[in-house]
């Protein structure tokens, strides 16, 4: 029992330490935009001088942000995930290509249509990474479940 408590405490402290250091924070919400239509907002807030990569950033360089949505019979995904933010394009000699990224923050938007009037949620995961001029954090995967309605 003591071991379990010790482990939990360790994990808690480990999490708290890492939490205090992460330069990215994600928040999720759903907004109704019409009859049965919702906009899912996946918002990243990024600490100054860190870059978060666009889905359109070429794959040979830093990892572009990507989203995977779980199948839900009540939801139809409409179109691709759109990006609302100030996109910066920068040629990186190291990769020999133009990387596309955001600073400060970006909101990724996925429109969904609700097939029937019911309480449901959009689940899935996202993968992303951040770099500044001096270092990069390894790619991270994050799961989400966003209640709709």
């Amino acid at each position, binding site marked *: 029992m003591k071991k379990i408590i010790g482990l939990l405490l360790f994990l*808690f*402290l*480990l*999490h*708290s*330490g*890492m*939490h*205090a*250091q992460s330069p990215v*924070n994600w*928040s999720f919400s759903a907004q109704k935009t019409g009859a049965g239509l919702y906009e899912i907002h996946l*918002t990243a*807030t*990024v*600490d*100054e001088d860190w870059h978060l990569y666009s889905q359109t950033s070429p794959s*040979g*360089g*830093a*990892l572009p942000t990507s989203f995977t949505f779980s199948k839900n019979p009540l939801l139809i995904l409409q179109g691709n995930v759109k990006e609302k*933010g*100030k996109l910066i*394009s*920068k*040629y*990186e000699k*190291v*990769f020999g290509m133009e*990387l596309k990224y*955001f*600073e*400060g*923050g*970006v*909101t990724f938007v996925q429109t969904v249509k609700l097939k029937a009037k019911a309480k449901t949620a959009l689940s899935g995961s996202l993968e992303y*990474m951040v*770099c*500044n*001029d*001096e*270092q*990069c*954090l*390894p*790619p991270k995967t994050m799961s989400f479940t966003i209640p709709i309605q």
Partner: protein
Amino acid sequence: MKRFTPAAVTLLLCIIAIQSFGQNEKVIKKYGVLPYNGMARILIKVPGPPTYDSVYFKNGVGIYQQDKYNGEIGWLYITDVDRNMVHYLILEKGTITITATKDSLIFVTGTPNNDALFTLDEEIEPLRMKMKTLGREVMKLRAAGENEKADKIQDEILAASKIWWDRQTQFATSNGNMAGLNYVNKLMSRFSTTDLKKILDNYKSFADRNAYRSVKNRYEAELKTDVGITPPAFTLASDKGGMISLTDIKKKLTIVDFWASWCKPCRAENPNLIALYNRWKDKGLEIVSVSIDKVADKQKWLDAIQEDKLTWLQAWDEKGTSNKDYGITAIPRTFLVDEAGKIVAKDLRGAELNKFVETYLSK
């Protein structure tokens, strides 16, 4: 101890209120206020699920009455205006005044630690905006093929950036308050294990704050690879087939370099490592690059070795075990190991690394 009379306390509070009001006025006068009316969110950096609060802005000024936290760090963001408007907030008890300026800067005043942040901001915010503006100019010039002009401005940016970093580092190590501790966290990777120990001593009165605990966690992880310690052993797959064991390398000085194909700052170091290796490989230098590319990215790793023309030992930490053993949370990271297998230095790059290698191998 003399007790303050209610009148004296009221007077003191009035003086403080007027002072903070005065600073806010100063900001508006100097930078021009952004007449924003709306909400801004505050992310509170405490362990557990994301915790938020909000503040309402009227004509570019938000008054945040904070009495819950006693020295935690918050991020304020005004995404409705500009996604780049993110700023630190020290959550200490009192009335915190937040001003949004015409240039989309945020200034925070009104309580002791936020006032301390303000004095730093007055120096570094204009520098940050200058770097951004110059950065945009560089992009335009390069798009127009004006590379010489772009290079010149790039140098200007580097010079401004150095001051920007140095001022923050100075602030972090010399300010013994929550504002300083905030910057310690921000600049954590820049501090050696010895620096961290000093910092933990300086800030020990804040031992119960989360911003302190994260520094302690980092320090404890770094002790595992402290100077004088034998670092964790590894046996990893080589790019040429076969395995590479750290303990099998018996050179005078070995650089263990954690990197990945997707890490720009890591790969930007490679030309320097090539020059360094060519100069000292016959005089006792070995380099082992340890890639943390995932299994799915094996080809990207191999391609990067080819593209960057790396000629030294290339190891692949495909399972992430070395990553974990060495406490790597960000890359690049370097660990310099002597003939006896002990760490003699770490996190040296560029000119600093060159100097160390030269001194060490010239002995």
